[in-house]
C-alpha cells in the first residue's frame, strides 16, 4: 500500500505541475512551427531554382541580345557600303554623261576653229605656191595636230580625274563605314564586358540571399526547439523521477491528458447543446 502511494505521488505531482505550467496552444504552436519549417525548406529549394533560372535566363537573354546587335551592325555595314557604291556610281554616271556632252561641244568648237584655219591655209596655198603660203599651211597643219592632241589629252585627263574623284570619295566612305562600325563594335564589346561584371555581382548577391535564407531556416528550427522545450517543473520532475529510479514517459502522459481533455470537452459541448435545445423547446411551449 505504501509502495503504491509512493508510486502515485510523483505522478500526481506531475499532473498538478502540468496543469499549472501548461501553455495554451503549445501543441498547435509546435505544429505550426513544423509546418513553417517545412514550408521554408520548400521555399529554399524553390528559391534556388528561381535564382539559377534568373541568372541563366538573363545570361542567355544578354548573349542573344549582343549576338543580334552584332549581326545588325554587320547588316548596317554592308547596307551602307552598298549604299556608298550606289550613290557614288550614280553621281559618276551622271558626271560622265555631262562630261561627254561638254567634251563633244568643246571639241566641235575648238575643232571647227582649227579646221577652218587649215582649210583657209590650204585654199591660199592652192592659188599661191609661195614659201610664205607653204609655211602658213604647214603652221595650220601643225596647229590642227596640236589642237587635236591637246584635246585628246584633256579628254583622257578629264575622264581619269572623274574616275579618281569617284574612287577617292568611295574609299573615304569605305574608311568611314569601317571605322564607325569598328567603334560601334568596341562600344558593344565594352557594354558586354560591363554586363559580365554585373552577372558576377548578381551571382554573388544570389549566393548571399541563399545563405541568408539558410540562416532564417536555422532560426526557425531553433524556435521550433524552443517551443518543444519542456517547462522547468517538467524537467525537474523528469529528472527527479529518473533520480529516484523511475523512468516514466511524460510524453505519453501528456498525450493521455490531451485526449482525455478533448473527450471531456466534446461530452460537455454535446450536453450543453442538448440542454439548450430543451430550454428552447420549453420556452416555445405556450
Amino acid at each position, binding site marked *: 500500500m505504501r509502495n503504491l502511494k*509512493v508510486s502515485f505521488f510523483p505522478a500526481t505531482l506531475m499532473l498538478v505541475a502540468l496543469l499549472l505550467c501548461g501553455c495554451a496552444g503549445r501543441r498547435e504552436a509546435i505544429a505550426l512551427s513544423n509546418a513553417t519549417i517545412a514550408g521554408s525548406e520548400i521555399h529554399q529549394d524553390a528559391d534556388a531554382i528561381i535564382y539559377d533560372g534568373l541568372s541563366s535566363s538573363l545570361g542567355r537573354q544578354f548573349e542573344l541580345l549582343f549576338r543580334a*546587335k552584332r549581326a545588325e*551592325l554587320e547588316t*548596317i555595314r554592308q547596307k*551602307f557600303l552598298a549604299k556608298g557604291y550606289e550613290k*557614288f556610281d550614280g553621281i559618276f554616271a551622271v*558626271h560622265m554623261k*555631262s562630261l561627254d556632252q*561638254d*567634251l563633244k561641244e*568643246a571639241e566641235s568648237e*575648238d575643232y571647227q576653229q582649227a579646221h577652218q584655219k587649215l582649210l583657209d591655209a590650204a585654199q591660199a596655198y592652192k592659188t599661191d605656191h609661195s614659201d610664205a603660203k607653204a609655211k602658213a599651211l604647214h603652221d595650220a597643219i601643225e596647229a590642227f595636230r596640236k589642237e587635236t592632241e591637246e584635246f585628246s589629252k*584633256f579628254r583622257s585627263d*578629264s575622264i581619269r*580625274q*572623274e574616275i579618281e*574623284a*569617284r574612287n*577617292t*570619295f568611295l574609299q*573615304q*566612305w569605305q574608311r*568611314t*563605314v569601317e571605322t*564607325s*562600325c569598328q567603334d560601334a563594335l568596341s*562600344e*558593344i564589346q565594352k*557594354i558586354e564586358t*560591363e*554586363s559580365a561584371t*554585373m552577372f558576377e*555581382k*548578381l551571382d554573388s*548577391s544570389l549566393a*548571399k*540571399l541563399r545563405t*541568408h535564407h539558410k*540562416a*532564417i531556416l*536555422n532560426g526557425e528550427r*531553433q*524556435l521550433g*526547439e*524552443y517551443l518543444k*522545450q*519542456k517547462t*522547468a517543473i517538467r*524537467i*525537474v*520532475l*523528469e*529528472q*527527479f*523521477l*529518473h*533520480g*529516484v*529510479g523511475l*523512468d516514466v514517459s511524460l510524453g505519453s502522459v501528456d498525450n493521455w491528458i490531451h485526449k482525455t481533455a478533448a473527450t471531456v470537452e466534446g461530452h460537455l459541448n454535446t450536453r450543453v447543446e442538448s440542454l439548450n435545445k430543451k430550454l428552447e423547446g420549453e420556452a416555445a411551449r405556450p
Partner: protein
Amino acid sequence: MGEALEKLKKKQEERWKEYAKALADLQAELAREIQKLTEEVRQEAEKLQKLVTAIEEKANEAEKSQADIEAKTKELETALKQFEARWGGLGQNLGQIVRNRIGTFFPLTPVR
C-alpha cells in the same frame, strides 16, 4: 588650252562638290543608325544594371540581418541547453536524495 576647255575644267571641279555632299549625307545617316543601335544595347544593359542593383541592395540588407539572426539563434540554443542542464540537474539531485532516503526503508528496484 582653249577657253572652252578652261570652262569645262571649272565645270567639272564644280561637279565634284556633289561627291562631298553625298559623302556628308551618308556619314550623317550612318551615324544616326549606329547611334540608335548602340543606344538600344546600352538601354538593355541599364535595365539589367537596375535589376542587379536592386537585388544587390536586398542582398546587402540580408547580409547585415544574417549576422543578427545567427547570433540570436546561437543565444537561444545556448539558453535552452543551460535551462535544461540547470533544472535537470536540480531534479536529478532531488531524486537521488529521495531515493537514497526512501531506499533505506523501501527497497525499489531501479528501472535502468
